């Protein structure tokens, strides 16, 4: 029988390898940006020492949503657009679990748009990763809400008609937004730093990850990948810190305080250069699960007594 201290020491000493978080072999296309996201998340789990059995990756439908199959944690590969409410149910039932959501631009911003808006409002302690490749991949190249105007796809052969929606400005416009960040798959170091900050935030962290789809829109992000000056690094002591090595490449930087929501909204509106970093972070926004689960333990006695009290209200005694 070990003491509590011994138990804690044991937990502290627990170390897992990257391999222990690796599930099935990814079936994404060669060069798919999802691989970078998967690697960042496996590294996150290892470095944060997450117990695999206490970690759940929830997803909807689409290329992005295959990710849980490639983790060796619990996973819930749900239905199209509904990853967020499923994750919310999990979190409310089990606040002790680490809950992640992997969703795509079709899954989150189109079919699941209503859930996205309300998930921001609930602000549950969930890490949401929006794999945004600007296209439907799994169904073979249809225009998505984040496709730039003019995108040629199988449903818009002459180019898409509407301006792209910005997941960042939408999210920043919703009450209770508490963590909004942007990363790109081709700067893995920042990607890892941002998902780590997202995970450590208590509340719903929304990370939009621009993710390349070489199969269907191979040239979508090419100008930015090849011209680091078109990337805007948002640095701050409470935000992204760019390493010296990375600084040599990504020189276009501004200091941005993640508490400044007005500035965050301005930055979010910029499509070019692409901002990378933490746009907004407010740890003070209350979490829905804390508001709803006010420390009331559900025991046989509490159920019995509230049940009997209710029956008393409606009982006709002989």
């Amino acid at each position: 029988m070990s003491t509590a201290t011994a138990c804690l020491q044991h937990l502290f000493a627990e170390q897992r390898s990257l391999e222990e978080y690796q599930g099935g072999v990814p079936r994404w296309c060669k060069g798919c940006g999802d691989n970078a996201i998967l690697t960042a998340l496996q590294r996150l789990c290892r470095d944060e020492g997450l117990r695999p059995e206490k970690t759940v990756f929830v997803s909807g439908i689409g290329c992005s949503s295959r990710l849980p199959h490639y983790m060796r944690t619990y996973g819930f590969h749900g239905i199209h657009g509904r990853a967020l409410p499923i994750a919310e149910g999990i979190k409310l039932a089990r606040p002790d679990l680490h809950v992640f959501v992997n969703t795509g631009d079709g899954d989150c911003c189109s079919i699941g748009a209503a859930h996205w808006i309300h998930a921001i409002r609930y602000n549950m302690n969930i890490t949401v990763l929006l794999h945004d490749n600007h296209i439907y991949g799994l169904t073979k190249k249809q225009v998505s809400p984040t496709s730039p105007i003019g995108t040629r796809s199988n449903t818009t052969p002459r180019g898409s008609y509407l301006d792209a929606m910005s997941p960042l400005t939408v999210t920043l416009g919703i009450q209770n937004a508490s963590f909004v960040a942007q990363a790109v798959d081709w700067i893995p170091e920042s990607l890892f730093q941002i998902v780590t900050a997202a995970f450590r935030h208590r509340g719903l962290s929304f990370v939009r990850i621009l993710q390349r789809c070489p199969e269907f829109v191979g040239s979508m992000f090419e100008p930015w990948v090849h011209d680091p000056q078109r990337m805007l690094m948002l640095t701050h002591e409470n935000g992204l810190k760019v390493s010296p090595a990375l600084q040599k490449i990504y020189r276009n930087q501004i200091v941005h305080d993640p508490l400044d929501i007005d500035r965050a909204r301005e930055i979010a509106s910029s499509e070019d250069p692409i901002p990378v970093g933490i746009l907004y972070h407010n740890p003070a926004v209350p979490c829905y699960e804390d508001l709803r689960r006010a420390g009331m333990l559900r025991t046989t006695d509490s159920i019995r007594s509230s049940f009997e009290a209710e029956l008393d209200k409606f009982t006709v005694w002989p």
Partner: protein
Amino acid sequence: MNAAAELVGSCATAKQVVTIGEAIVEIMSDSGEGAQKCGQSFGSIAARMGNGVWTVEIIPAEIQPPARSIAGASGNRIRIGSKRVTNGGDEADLAIAFNEQVLLGRVNAGELKPGCIILLESMWADSADPKIVAQYRETLARLLAEGYRVHEVPMENECRKLVSDPRKGKNMFVLGMLCNLYSLDMDLARDQIAFIFGKKADKIIKSNVALLEAGHAWAEHNLDFGFRVPAVRATEPQLVINGNTAVALGVLASGMDICAMYPITPATSASHYLSDVFERSGGLVHQAEDEIAACAFAIGASYAGKVAVTITSGPGYSLKQEGIGLAVMAEIPLVVVDVQRGGPSTGQPTKSEQSDLLTVMFGSHGDAPKVVMAASTIEDCFHSMITARRIAETFNMVVVVLSDASLATAQQPFPRPEFNEDWLAPPIDQNPVPEGAKPYDWDPVTGLSRRFVPGQPGGMHTLTGLAHDRSSRVAYDPEINEQGMHARSLKLAALQKMLTPPKVFGDEEGDLLVVGWGSTKGAIEESVERMRAEGHKVSSLHLSFLQPMAPGIKEILHRFRQVITIEANWSDLPEDPLIDETNRRYSALAMLLRARYLVDIDCWSEVRGRPIKPGSICAVLRQRLAREEQRS
């Protein structure tokens, strides 16, 4: 001076109190005038006295419909009897109306007995608006001409003697009249007022008691008739609640933790009540952003914890279907309550129907076997939730519990349940999963597998709505796809083997068997009793489990010369010129029974939005029996 006024004027003295076996009373007002509170109170007092009681709400679709309109009628039907009452009965014996227009709707719908006693607010005769005066006089004349025994009652004028705003409190004056007319105990009536206004000031209680007493006195002095429905005080404590409250209490008692819902009529009141009481014992109601989210939320909660429930009505159920399919495929236990209303589409939100049976059985794309139960009484609404939770958990299945608008709002006393710890869900298993165990290790005979809950070391797997193998790996293999389908289907058979055959009401064999499900039970059994009293060999069978169906039903069907289902959903009329054996659309249960048991089962149904009356059923049964006699 009209005849009724004359009648009221002349009846000063000796009150004749007649003893009767049962009575049906309707109280109608504009929305917000309190007829419902009056009716519920009348029912509760009668229940306290030991009468059998069934109350039915008459609800307009709008919150504030125009005053004095036929469609705006809001009120209550109360049937009280010496014996147990199981349904709202046939036509009303006595009606009280706060204006003549709200009464007209009921008259036109044939809800009042010929010669029914009507107590009608008379203030409209003196209205400053000549149009209202004309409407009132015209309606009064019509009612008298049609033979109703109308008594004009100056309700508002009488109330004004006691309170400044007689519109509030008129209902308690009416309650007082009813207590007088049906010889109810005034002390119990005063208690009832104290109970319903319990949270308010003493002044309010006193003023309402004064109105109650005034109503009682007025009826004593001005109405020369009265009734007594003998009652035997119950020896056991009785619970007086409606079906939705019973569902909510069932959720509480089942040990479920989380209810996710989205507002929809007529289901929402269950969640209202649950929201109020659940959190006191650590449960919670989550109002999601939409029906789909409510279902997905409940699925997530169920997957990671104890079985969760989502409560909805037809349109909401349609929206949840994809999520329900996911729960079926991934074998996540889930309880879904469908409080049925009129359909399709928006249909009749406040009216009752039994039209969702086939949807809940076969709905969601692909083969999605789930358990379907139907509550048939208020008490059953309570116990069904406990049973549903247990089945969902044992079989890792979706269990749909069907109720309907009739049960949702009807009240009937039933024995107070004794709390039982066995009702509660067991704690979540967080033990390590044995080495080599698989999340879908389907038993070849029962199809059952154990569920791995997040938090269990060694149980990590990714659950998916895609076809999957025993390890929950995505599989496109034809073998594996069939294995999964096979296992999910077998679970229904495994459950079926645990069910007991339903009991026949009446003799085990005879000329005609009536089969029903859900809220029609009381009316069907009452009609069977009436038919048997007339000497007919009629019995009935009521099904609680629609999927799977209990064993033994086939044998029962074969012991009767004719079988008919009575249901509140659409069935084609055989007498229609285009309808014949090859195209007739049968009622839902009839179709299911015909397909399963190969018995030529007839059906009769009604979609009038109101509970089916025992009298209507008797008429159908007589006709079917006569037809058979002609044939043979």
